[in-house]
């Protein structure tokens, strides 16, 4: 590992740490200073006893000056302590952590499938630019890109109910909870099917369009002509020369599109009542459960920052021009 490599890593690390710091500040500001802040809500909340309120006030320093509140808040954020859910009366962490896990079960395969599909169909579309297959792929992608996630999910539910016997709600059927792991696994897969398809399709649109555009740029480059002049076959030109170069913008998009992915996840989870972080956020809004909302917001943003951070390394590994800079 060279010195410049090390400095790149260092630079990215510092930037990620700063971003996390900024997120904590933002989180603090949002939930303390805006109208409807949680302190007043805390005192008004009929769900809590006076004793609980006192304990929370003490723990979060709510009777202390603002800057001490911030120091306490900062520490708590880093320790993962977001207090007690108004609604569930449990530590926020114990609600959010399993939810994150459930979201990842949905998010990771959907994102991977969308990327892979997008990459290849986008490439094919660009190669056959202007032909029928291009307009088909492009049209589909555009429509999917423009489709609200919750609407697409709802439409799939309508279809599924028509076909019959496809789970459209939750992660497990109630009657499998005491069954063996294998049965539970198959049940999970069944429940995963529709949300997974929804999320994959929603993400697929954008990845395809980006891949197609970036490959169109690459295909007009001189080195593609050079490859052609060498006698390379079409498939060699596309997959060996153009594809890796076209991938670069896609990778950087993947890095910054976690925000998009999160949006997709939230709405998919809401429609299918998938008990992930999005669904938790939704119910927290509905129940005015601010500690949970705050914790969810913090964890979602941190996850995105970290995902970004790692995507940058993948990018620097793929592109030698960055590696050696």
């Amino acid at each position, binding site marked *: 590992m060279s010195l410049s490599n090390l400095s790149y890593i260092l630079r990215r690390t510092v*930037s990620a740490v*700063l*971003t996390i710091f*900024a*997120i904590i500040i*933002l989180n603090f500001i*949002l*939930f303390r200073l*805006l*109208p*409807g*802040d949680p302190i007043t809500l805390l005192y008004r909340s009929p769900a809590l006893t006076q004793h609980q309120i006192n304990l929370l006030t003490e723990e979060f320093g709510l009777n202390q000056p603002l800057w001490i509140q911030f120091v306490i808040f900062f520490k708590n954020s880093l320790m993962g302590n977001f207090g007690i859910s108004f609604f569930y009366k449990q530590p926020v962490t114990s609600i959010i952590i399993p939810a994150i896990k459930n979201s990842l079960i949905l998010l990771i395969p959907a994102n991977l499938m969308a990327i892979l599909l997008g990459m290849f169909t986008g490439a094919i579309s660009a190669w056959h630019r202007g032909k029928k297959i291009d307009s088909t792929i*492009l049209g589909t992608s*555009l*429509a999917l*890109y*423009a*489709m*609200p*996630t*919750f*609407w*697409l999910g*709802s*439409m799939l*539910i*309508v279809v599924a*109910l028509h076909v019959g016997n496809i789970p*459209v*709600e939750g992660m497990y059927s109630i009657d499998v909870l005491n069954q063996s792991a294998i049965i539970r696994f198959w049940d999970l897969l069944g429940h995963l099917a529709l949300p997974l398809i929804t999320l994959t399709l929603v993400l697929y649109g954008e990845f395809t369009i980006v891949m*197609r*555009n970036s490959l*169109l740029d690459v295909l007009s480059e001189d080195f593609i002509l050079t490859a052609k002049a060498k006698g390379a076959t079409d498939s060699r030109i596309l997959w060996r020369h153009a594809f890796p170069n076209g991938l670069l913008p896609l990778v950087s998009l993947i890095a*910054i599109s*976690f*925000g*998009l992915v*999160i*949006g997709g996840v*939230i*709405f998919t989870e*809401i*429609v299918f009542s998938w008990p992930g972080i999005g669904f938790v*956020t*939704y119910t927290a*809004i*509905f129940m005015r459960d601010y500690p949970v*909302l705050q914790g969810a*917001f913090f964890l*979602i*943003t941190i996850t*995105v*920052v970290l995902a*970004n951070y790692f995507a940058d390394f993948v990018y620097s590994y793929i592109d030698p021009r960055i590696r050696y800079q």
Partner: protein
Amino acid sequence: MNPLMNYLGQLRKSKIGLVGWGIILTFVFIAIFAPLISPYNPNAISGAYYQHPSMLHLFGTNQEGQDLFSQNMYGTRIPLIVGTTAALVAVVLGLLVGLFSGYFGGVPDEILMRITDFFLVVPAIVLMIVISALIGGTLTNVILIIGGLSWPMTARVVRSMVLSIKEWPFVEVAKSSNGSSLYIMFKHILPNVMPVVFANAALSVANAIFTQAALVFIGVGDVTDLSWGNIMHFAYINGTITTGIWWYMIPPGIFIVLLTVGFIFLSTSFETIFNPRTRRI
């Protein structure tokens, strides 16, 4: 040729652009003449609840027995208003930040870009949901929230263009002819970033329409005003999807897709006409 005439002249040859304008103008027409087009008062009960689509109720009726066709027609207004105004806020902010940041560079640029990066990393939709939930999603709030959080993309794009344009010889020539910074920024650089800004603005409108619908759907937007998102919100919370009321949610979704695609096409037409090198679709 002046740019507007050039655009209009080229537009005739751009199928995408014509389709985009066609879609958008149709919806604008619907929004303006909603009272004439709608057979019923959208808020009045005009029949039994959950009626199937029929000649009487083209899109059926909802849980209250209100006419869904009329609701969808009136529901065109809010998305268009929020979409264009929020996009305007976002684009003007993004343009100014990008222009100043790119042109002056240095510490202000560094700070502005840190902020931009931050908002690009933090998932905007989550932030919007949280803020709307906290301060309440009235029409103005939603416009300000969407506009105020969507400018970083435009700022980034404009800044990177400014960075390259300001190195162009014609800028140096203007500088050496005693052109002031503001003169150069607005006379030389601005006209050259405008095509991209237009393309971005059209995309921003698409995004804002989309986001507004999402916020209303999730229940943090303004659920009292009629809009496509609002119709879908009630379709969802009344459990129509799983209870066989399939017709309730279809039209607003299709309208959102159409209008969004319209603005995407518009954006593409700006890009291809003003910068033929990027001709893509």
